[in-house]
């Protein structure tokens, strides 16, 4: 059993912090303030003076928002769907806590580099786990999770098959249920679990060697077994990739 972040490369973002340009790095599922050796101590020191440490603020915002399924609604659906956030030009029609949480989410999505992609990978991994183990917020989150899966399957299939208007019917199944992809008279019917996002899509494996990957598995994070179908959806082929 590998970690959910296996196969997802590290990512860094520069942060203007205390007059210097610092680096915040995402690696192995964690956000690390590279230039701060004792983050907790620095926060304690800065708090009485009312100062903020930009790198640590970013970490704090990250930890607050990383399990918000709304991240998946807003984040990119892939290379063909780039975000273009004019953060300073954005206005909010309401105040209070909702504005605060939304500003935090948008700030992370506007952070640049690959951090927004790592954020949604983290969110997807958290909800993959919660779907398996159960969680109090699942009832309200599930529609957003289903939509997150649907949107990414939609974009992937339409682009891959070169059919921009292709109707896609998706059934979000449990992780142990049969995965299906069927060409019908109207379009394509797909049955995939939410974990496809973490296992396949977030790792950039959705289309590999021109084939759609419907499942990816690794035991050591280096050797990958991909179950793939070709564009005619008629041949299931297993690929093994060894990255060592």
């Amino acid at each position, binding site marked *: 059993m590998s970690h959910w972040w296996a*196969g997802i*490369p590290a*990512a860094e973002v520069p942060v203007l912090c205390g007059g210097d340009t610092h680096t915040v790095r995402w690696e192995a599922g964690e956000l690390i303030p590279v230039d701060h050796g004792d983050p907790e101590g620095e926060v304690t020191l800065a708090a009485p003076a009312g100062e903020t440490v930009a790198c640590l603020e970013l970490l704090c915002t990250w930890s607050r928002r990383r399990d918000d399924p*709304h991240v998946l*609604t*807003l984040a990119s*659906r*892939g*290379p063909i*769907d780039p975000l*273009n*956030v*004019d953060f300073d*030009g*954005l*206005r*909010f*029609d309401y105040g209070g806590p909702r504005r605060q949480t*939304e500003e935090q989410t948008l700030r992370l*999505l*506007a952070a640049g580099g*690959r951090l927004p*992609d790592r954020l949604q*990978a983290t969110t997807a991994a958290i909800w993959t786990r919660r779907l398996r183990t159960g969680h109090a917020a699942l009832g309200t989150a*599930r*529609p957003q999770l289903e*939509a997150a899966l649907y*949107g990414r399957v*939609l974009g992937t299939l339409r682009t891959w098959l070169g059919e921009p208007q292709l109707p896609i019917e998706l*059934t979000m*199944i449990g992780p*142990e*249920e*049969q*995965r*299906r*992809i*069927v*060409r*019908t008279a109207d379009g394509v019917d797909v*049955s995939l679990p939410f974990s496809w996002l973490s296992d396949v899509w*977030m*790792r*950039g494996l*959705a289309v590999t060697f021109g084939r759609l990957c*419907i499942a990816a598995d690794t035991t050591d994070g280096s050797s990958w*077994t991909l*179950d793939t179908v070709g564009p*005619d*959806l*008629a041949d*299931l*082929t*297993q*690929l*093994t*990739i*060894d*990255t*060592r």
Partner: protein
Amino acid sequence: MGMSPKRSPGRAAPIRESNRCGSSVTVVRTRLRWSRLPLGGQPVADSSAGSGFGGRGRVAGETVIALTRSRKSVRAVWCGSVTLGTELVAFDAEVYLRRLGERLLDDPDQQQPRHWSALRGAAAALVGVGAIGADLAWRVIDDYATATRIRSGKPGFVHFDAPLRRREAASLMPRQTRVIDQEILVGEDQVLVRDLAITADGGTLRYRRRLDAPGSGQVARLSRRPGGFPWNVTPPDIIDSDGNRPAVRFGSGGRDGEGHVDGELELSGTIAPEAAWLEIDGTRVDLYRRTGRWEVGIEALEDRSPVERFLWRHLAVADLRSGVTTDLEPLIQALVAAGALEEGSPVLQDLRSVAARMPRRPFHQRGVPGGSTRSLVEPWGSLLRRLGRDDGPEWTLVLGAVAPSCDGVQFAANSITSDLAGFEVEFEVAPNLLGVGALDELPVAWWARDDLENHYLGIPTGGGVRGDSAQGTLRYWPALDPRAKRLDLLMCVESHQAVVSVSLPESSETSR
């Protein structure tokens, strides 16, 4: 037909693949093993079948691939037939709307800003049948409005609070309207003083400034006072024939028309109901009683199911912003998906027959697409029968008719102006309906009918807010039948409609 390697394992050149999350992945020493899984012929009985087997099938033109995943391994399964059974899944309106939002994100051509989200019609339909609450439906609309905004690179609002439900508003003031219809010189401008509506605590004086040349409207708009006011900075002094001198200020009403700008002056204070004239900055204008004859009333709307009423109403109400006829299909599809409407039902056939013949932009359409309208249900058949005609009479009729309150909404018709292609009604409505309505309220439709059984549809084309009411102009299509002797203006609200029934002038009686 067992395992059949397509490519033998071996060393390959390093491969640089673009990672979905953006970073590049260098695959050093890649070994590829392409393998085809063994084929099997047995169908899988249902989707939960646990004993997987490899294979593929092609039945009834459909190829099915299924993959069973266990905790320990991944087993690919070909289903020999599509006999996986029909899975009955409870309809989840939020999921439905969010999936629609995803499709809109994937298709930028369909994205619309702010409250005019393309999700709105489907959301209103699902709210209307109780499949989802208005607040949650709005949250979905708002989520995808934000998602759209942060892809645009444009500044502006990323969120919008839900439109408010109609508020209770004070009743519209009864009024006596006096025709003036006289041109006066204001500075270098000729201004047509149109009429005066006298209420208990003041009045509204309406005027029209004709623009010198086509195209000068833009300049006029940039330089004029609110409402196209031609009097420099200070409102004029006004005195009536009884010596009353009301306070005068610029009104919020008025609009730009073809070759003219309309405006209003708000008068506060006593104006004699029997006044014979006004003096405007010393220029006298006479007040006449030559207004149209009218009656007002309330009628119950035809008894329909809520779903039918919802769909017919939305077909009658064009998009406020663009004037484009509502596309019913997203609404119909939502209702069918929710099980509130049966695909193939007679009402759906009627709706689609009418919708197919409705002009996308009623003011710019000539002739009915799709031929005869005889098979269409009323009032749609008679509405579309005269589409594209340009034989309307040309006159203006001053009214000042205030209808009774109807389902909490009240309207006043100040005047009707008929031209070759249609007619306009200058109106007031309380509460203000000219903004975006709440998801759980039926939009108000503005129908009209004449004594020859023709029907007409009105679309608000501009206006402004006055306290908790609004005033503006309704443009009706098609052209008024020149033979008509009576016209009923109908404001359709929830279960009733308010009626202002107007006796139409003979052509020789026309004013202005």
